[in-house]
């Protein structure tokens, strides 16, 4: 009986672990609510990058034409990652919208680190 209880505990622990791994590794569902969270996260990351003059060109700059996205009506839109995220969301494609927003967040974080990492930069001669 004791032996069975140990096995049951082990199996439970394994199940718990695997489910938590799946949860950690999984993506948030592509919903309007989750997209809005991703959008807010991206804007916060980009504001942080902008505060140290580290914003990149294609993250959310309105004149960027780097990211291409085709809407259901067949029209191809050119914009920034955040611009494309909003276009995709308006088109109901929350999976693409969240992917674009996540890229913008990544760029914001990288831009911030890039700028902060070089605050004492000078000539190498």
């Amino acid at each position, binding site marked *: 009986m004791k032996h069975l209880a140990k096995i049951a505990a082990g199996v439970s622990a394994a199940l718990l672990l695997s489910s938590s791994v799946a949860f950690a590794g999984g993506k948030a569902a592509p919903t309007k609510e989750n997209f809005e969270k991703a959008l807010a996260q991206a804007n916060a990351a980009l504001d942080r990058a902008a505060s140290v003059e580290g914003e990149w060109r294609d993250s959310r700059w309105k004149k960027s034409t780097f990211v291409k996205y085709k809407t259901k009506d067949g029209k191809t839109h050119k914009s920034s990652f955040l611009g494309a995220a909003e276009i995709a969301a308006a088109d109901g494609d929350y999976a693409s919208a969240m992917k674009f927003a996540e890229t913008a967040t990544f760029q914001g974080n990288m831009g911030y680190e890039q700028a902060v990492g*070089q605050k004492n930069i000078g000539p190498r*001669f």
Partner: protein
Amino acid sequence: MHKIVKSLLAASVAVSTSVAVAGNSDINNKDAMAMQEYFKNKLPGVEMSSLIHGAYALDESRFDQFMNIEEFPPYEDFVAKGEEFYNTPFKNGKSFADCFGDDTSAVKAKYPHWDSKKESVVTLEEDINKCLTDNGEKALGWKKGMMAYVSGYLATEARGQTINVVVPDDPKAIAAYEDGKKHFYQKRGQLNLSCADCHVYYGSSYVRSEVLSPATGQASHFPVYRQKWANGSPNEDGLGTLHRRYGGCNKQVRAKPFKAQSEEYKNLEFFHTSMSNGLEYNGPAYRK
């Protein structure tokens, strides 16, 4: 290399004679001399004074082509429009001469400079618009069109004069200069490149088919007539200001550009122009 090439010594002397007088910081001249020394070692046989011609100073064939184009400069008509605009009185009867003085050859060399009252760097384009708006006229766009024409006219008038940007011995002026210097050396954008990466450490190297111009001498020939800009213009107007070019450079490394005449670009101009101290103004000039 060619008759336009002046001696290395002359450039060095010019820089050393442009150094501080009482009340002026020498910080920018020290930096300019250090950068010019770097290029002397990097580009043996190239006269520093010839770097006002950018990448064309590094190759005889390219230089010959450049000089052929300059015989009938494609910017001539635009500069003439700038001259006409400059000499046309405002509606209130005043003119640019009331703002800048009668000697047009003396205007360009005053910029950029530190204004201790405004606690800011002041550029030529900024004062052109200030003169217009102070006299009830409409301000011009910062990057091209009539602004570049007027600036081009004043650059033509200043040809042959020595660049001598002064950084006053004022902590705020020095901070603005240091801010511009930091912008120049700081890597930015998705491509992780600084101004210095392309125009100092790799200045004179090829990027695909193009040669990167050394930073020393770059500010001498603005506003510049770029064939690339002319190709995108219905009337082949390729004239643009220094801040237009800064924005283009930032975009090329995939960084979000700053606005023309923003504090960031004005401070950058303060540093960048200082790096050509001792060299001659030769703007506007043709570039690919």
